[in-house]
């Protein structure tokens, strides 16, 4: 191989650039070693802040943010004479599993030991890292024993699991409505797939398997459901379960089903979509009678603390809070109380303190369940938060508690 002088000079340029690269690599090291002395306790907010699931991400992030402010204002957490102030560190995972892992790696690299995250699809690949690095995680994830089991000691589910929503409340609602032919149209992701599995299981246990006449999975970013709905409507269902959709998806699904002449009812057992956009996009007439779980109607809030929370959220963000905002708020308050009770930042001690700690927060008493609970098969560990679970129906464009 012969090399010209020009090529040699080019190569040395390349090398210079590489040295530059080394310099850039070392830069964060020098820059951030300065503020190591501040007693701060960091929680990683590993959530989607852009993309289709951004509204869920912001909702959870804001809920945790309000809780962080509340704890800090009350003087922080005192552990063995040292006062710790919470600091929330955001990382945008765009609802992409690999980005979420990257965010967690980045968090671990910064020495963060607490995290909040959401979505089964992005949480599942994080589990090995969570267990290995003992990251105490509060996560808004559906599913059931596939996430919450004795192996995943550090993963706490803030929202009601599919065993609580679909298998218990869902079946109750179907029985009450007298559903004869059920069509399922849900998202083609981990959440949608695992919900479908839970639903089929629950129908089998209740000897109702024959009511499920159609199931369809379409991508989460779909806006035209007509082909999938045509398939489902060919089976003449009298009830459609729109599973894991955020508000816009569910609204378009309902609107387009009505436009195709569908007259039956709808439920949404897991998505907890916001009612405002749902009514606006779907049309007031179309979404009448849609039954949803986990949503509190703004004028039927159960406690004073919850009303204050609602007002705070509205004042700061000019919109109503979503379900995962208050669920993660409550879980975070529980976590903070547990750290204070354990008088340690050691993940194992904190987790042990969380297991049998009961606190009173927004919706009354909050505690962890799962162990030896016949309703939660296979959990075997107290890592599931429970609080009152509202069933809501849309009447006249407004949510009201369903009788």
């Amino acid at each position, binding site marked *: 191989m012969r090399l010209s002088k020009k090529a040699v000079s080019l*190569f*040395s340029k390349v090398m210079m650039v590489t040295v530059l690269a080394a310099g850039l690599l070392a830069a964060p090291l020098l820059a951030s070693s300065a503020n190591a002395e501040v007693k701060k306790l960091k929680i990683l907010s590993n959530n989607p802040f852009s993309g289709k699931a951004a509204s869920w991400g912001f909702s959870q992030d804001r809920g945790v943010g309000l809780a962080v402010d509340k704890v800090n204002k009350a003087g922080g957490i005192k552990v063995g004479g040292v006062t710790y102030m919470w600091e929330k560190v955001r990382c945008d995972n765009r609802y992409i*599993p690999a980005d979420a892992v*990257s965010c967690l790696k980045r968090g671990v690299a910064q020495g963060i030991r607490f995290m909040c995250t959401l979505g089964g699809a992005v949480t599942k690949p994080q589990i090995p890292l969570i267990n290995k690095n003992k990251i105490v995680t509060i996560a808004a994830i559906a599913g059931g024993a596939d996430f919450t089991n004795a192996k995943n000691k550090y993963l706490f589910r803030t929202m009601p699991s599919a065993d609580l929503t679909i298998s218990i409340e869902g079946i109750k609602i179907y029985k009450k409505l007298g559903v004869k032919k059920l069509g399922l149209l849900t998202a083609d992701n981990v959440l949608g797939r695992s919900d479908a599995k839970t639903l089929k299981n629950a129908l089998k246990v209740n000897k109702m398997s024959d009511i499920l006449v159609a199931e369809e999975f379409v991508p989460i970013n779909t806006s035209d459901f007509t082909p999938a709905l045509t398939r489902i409507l060919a089976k003449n269902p009298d009830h459609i379960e729109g599973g894991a959709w955020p508000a816009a998806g569910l609204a378009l699904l309902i609107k387009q089903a009505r436009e195709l002449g569908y007259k039956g009812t709808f439920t949404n057992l897991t998505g907890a979509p916001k009612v405002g956009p749902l009514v606006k996009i779907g049309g007031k007439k179309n979404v009448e009678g849609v039954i949803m779980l986990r949503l509190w109607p703004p004028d039927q809030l159960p406690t004073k603390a919850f009303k204050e929370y609602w007002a705070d959220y509205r004042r700061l963000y000019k919109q109503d809070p979503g379900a995962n905002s208050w669920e993660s708020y409550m879980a975070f308050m529980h976590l903070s109380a547990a750290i204070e009770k354990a008088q340690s930042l050691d993940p194992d001690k904190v987790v042990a303190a969380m297991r049998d700690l009961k606190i009173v927060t927004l919706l009354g008493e909050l505690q962890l369940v799962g162990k030896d609970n016949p309703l939660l098969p296979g959990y075997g560990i107290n890592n599931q938060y429970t609080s009152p679970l509202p069933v809501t129906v849309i009447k006249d464009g407004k949510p009201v508690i369903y009788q």
Partner: protein
Amino acid sequence: MNSKLAPYLTALVVMAALALLPPLTKLIAPAQWELTAHIGIKVLLNVGFGLCLWLMLQAGELSLGQSGFITIGAYTTGILVAKYKLISVVWLGYLAGALAATVIALLLGYLIVHLRRIFFLLVTWSFAEMLHPVLTSFEHPFGGAMGIIDIPAPEGLGLFAESWTGYYYLALIYAFVVLWLIWRIAGSKVGLITKSIGQNDTLVTFCGLYVRKYKVMVFALGCFITGVGGGILASYLTAISPETFTFFTSLDIIMFNLIGGMGTMAGPIVGAVILTGLNEYLFAAGYWRMVVYGLIIIFFITLLPGGMVSLPAVIRKKLGRKSSKQEVSLG
């Protein structure tokens, strides 16, 4: 000193300097080591990805489908090593991933290299887009929407106390092997022919050379590099899904070249360092990240088309001195 050995010596010095980074960081600021490693690994892998386009750019074409080949490499590794455990040695998984990417690139390349410019760009992009529905639709072997999880680290990485160091050295070796490979090819007969094809392919045909063969070769080689990187990335991330590598991944790879300087070898390296660094800095910025990206693209396209590499020449020119050489080859 022998001018033939000079670049290799320089490379060795730089490599040694980068190799010293882990022990030095651990010594000076141990708390910052993992974050430094995380950024370093991403930068070094991206240097490899950025360089994969270099040969193709010499031939005058640009692929917007590299995310597809990263996906193929990563999925092949994941399926063989993690999902069905058909291969017990992760290194062989990487090799399989690279081979899969190469074979598919040879087949696709044979069909599409007669297309020029925007048509080549569009067809490679369509190919990458087409993978997505395939991956989500089949639970076996692709794992559906969930993708593949629990992809193990390669053997031998356990020699280091923690995986960060191992991955850092792996990425370092990857980046330098890719650089060496590209460098060797650039100076070889194939490299010269490729460059002539980019300048005037009709003339090359008149010289009795089969243009299509060289273009396919160059395309496949780029995809081989991408495939290996995909496998390493799969291990590092431990989980991959159909949404992991998207249009924006391919766009990033083009942007490394654009920011650094299209058609120069230093370009993709500089670009990868700058853009990856920026990306890691903006990790919490949400939608501002898009705004910054957009501004960067528009800035480099309209004001600095030669990329960062051309900056010294541009400054010299602005100062009124005669510029020695300009490395503008956009389009």
